[in-house]
């Protein structure tokens, strides 16, 4: 009996110790982030920033820049595309068809839903037009609807390419069109089973011959079984004409945005790494995507750091894994990337903008902003610089969550915000 009591006390102590916060911790950025030892308390950390309306407030941008909401009341805007005539296409939707597999999934989905919009995804593309160039987008019209959680967008060869959550399609697009002339033509099916990570990111090669599609994993770390991970966590190279594909790079857990680097023509991606290894693991990253490379998921992270949760292990794949180029920090949830241009101003001309949706599983939330990663000689160099902040206020309330970022050649950054269902436009003051 005494033994039982002792055991009970011990269990209680164990339970309580798991409730301790992790205290302050730092976020490592850059090419060689310091990686702490993996940790996971008995209870996972979940911290959802409470949503609130913007009211009179706006995100903060650097001095000399102005931010304006150019479209509101959208139906979950995710990624944007600037068309040759300056019109903006906005992909709106929400995908994913995964079932709850464990009691945890039921609880986690309820908690996470508190940090997202209650609006139903539009499954459509909205076109925004500023005909007179005064910065007010007076036309807001549906370009195409009845899509299936559209996300990645690209333009080339007189077509608008759209990556739905289960297929890659194209619309004929004569310049100046405001409404698609008909339903899209399917180029190829995309892996759409379960869709734990449903977003299919998209980029087009400079010659328009190939489309690159980012396909996220179907789990955090294989907990839904390896069967559903076939053709997941990778970037496909798809022939725009035939729809034939090959795996261009693998082991990228969730490549949420792809862009071609101007000048070099290289493919770059931002990717979201795995959870439940602690507040400072594993860094989400910005990287050039090398043809044929393996980036570790699920067997290892940031090179050869083995993740024992993926079983059976695969030492051969671990040995093959390469490190990404640049750490953005763990759990920032990078969902958008675009390369800058001279028109953005001298300070922000050389580099890439990254939209960070923000963390949900970290005691001190990170992300909830758009950062600028400076480049020199075609490679990231230096710490990320805040570009648009205040999406999560100092009052702990969240007013917006950045997703896609797109540089308008006219000298503006377009930011899609899927919490307040707004498209923001940041311009330099004249």
């Amino acid at each position, binding site marked *: 009996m005494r033994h039982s009591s002792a055991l009970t006390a011990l269990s209680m102590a164990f339970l309580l110790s798991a409730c301790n916060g992790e205290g302050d911790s730092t976020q490592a950025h850059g090419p060689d982030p310091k990686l702490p030892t993996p940790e996971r308390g008995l209870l996972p950390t979940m911290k959802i920033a409470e949503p609130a309306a913007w009211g009179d407030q706006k995100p903060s941008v650097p001095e000399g820049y102005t931010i304006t909401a150019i479209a509101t009341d959208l139906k979950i805007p995710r990624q944007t595309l600037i068309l040759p005539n300056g019109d903006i296409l906005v992909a709106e939707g929400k995908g994913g068809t995964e079932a709850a597999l*464990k009691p*945890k999934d039921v609880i986690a989905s309820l908690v996470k839903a508190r940090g997202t919009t209650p609006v139903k995804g539009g499954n459509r593309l909205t076109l925004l037009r500023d005909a007179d160039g005064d910065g007010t987008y007076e036309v807001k019209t549906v370009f195409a609807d009845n899509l299936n959680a559209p996300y990645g967008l690209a333009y080339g060869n007189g077509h608008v390419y759209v990556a739905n959550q289960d297929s890659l399609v194209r619309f004929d697009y004569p310049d100046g069109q405001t409404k698609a002339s008909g339903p899209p033509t399917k180029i190829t099916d995309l892996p759409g089973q379960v869709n734990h990570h449903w977003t299919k990111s998209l980029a087009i090669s400079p010659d328009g011959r190939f489309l690159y599609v980012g396909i996220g994993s179907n789990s*955090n770390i294989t*907990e*839904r079984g390896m069967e559903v991970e076939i053709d997941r966590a990778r970037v496909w190279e798809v022939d725009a004409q035939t729809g034939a594909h090959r795996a261009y790079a693998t082991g990228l857990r969730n490549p949420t945005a792809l862009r071609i680097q101007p000048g070099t023509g290289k493919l770059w991606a931002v990717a979201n790494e795995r959870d439940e290894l602690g507040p400072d693991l594993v860094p989400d990253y910005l990287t050039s995507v090398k043809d044929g490379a393996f980036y570790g998921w699920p067997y290892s992270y940031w090179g050869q750091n083995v993740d024992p*949760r*993926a079983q059976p292990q695969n030492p051969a794949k671990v040995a093959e894994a390469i490190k990404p180029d640049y750490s953005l920090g763990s759990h920032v949830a990078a969902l958008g990337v675009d390369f800058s241009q001279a028109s953005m101003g001298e300070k922000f001309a050389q580099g890439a903008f990254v939209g960070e949706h923000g963390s949900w599983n970290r005691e001190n939330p990170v992300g909830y902003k758009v950062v600028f990663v400076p480049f020199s000689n075609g490679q990231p160099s230096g710490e990320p610089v805040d570009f648009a902040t205040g999406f999560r206020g100092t009052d702990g309330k969240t007013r917006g969550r950045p997703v896609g970022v797109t540089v308008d050649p006219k000298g503006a950054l377009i930011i899609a915000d899927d919490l307040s269902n707004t498209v923001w436009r940041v311009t330099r003051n004249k």
Partner: protein
Amino acid sequence: MTATARLPYPTTPGPLHATLLAGTVPLFLGALISDIAYFQTYQSQWSNFAAWLLAGAELFCGLTLLFALVNLVRAQPKRGRPVLYFLLLLVTWILGLINSFEHAKDAWAVMPAGLVLSVIAAPLACIATWLGLTNLRTGGAQ
């Protein structure tokens, strides 16, 4: 026997109490067997089964714990079996709770702690059930 009939309370659990108590055995046992299957095959579906069986086991065990508490309060004398029965269920329930949190981890992170806790909890549930169904009182007829 005549003395027993005069007791103000029964010495074995009523139908609801008994059902809940006995129900913990297949639930904890099922979780254990599922954990063993996952440990041997790496097929994560077994881990999902274990997590749900554990959730059911915790529900049954938790409700039984309430019956055991009431029994303990009403018992005279408050020593021996009623105490042991209550504490056994309490330990089983707490281990099961910790195990549920373990099973909320992703993929192989459940192992080995999840399996170890199941190995401990399943026999405890069996012993508690055997104790409870045999006699809830110490000293028999008094």
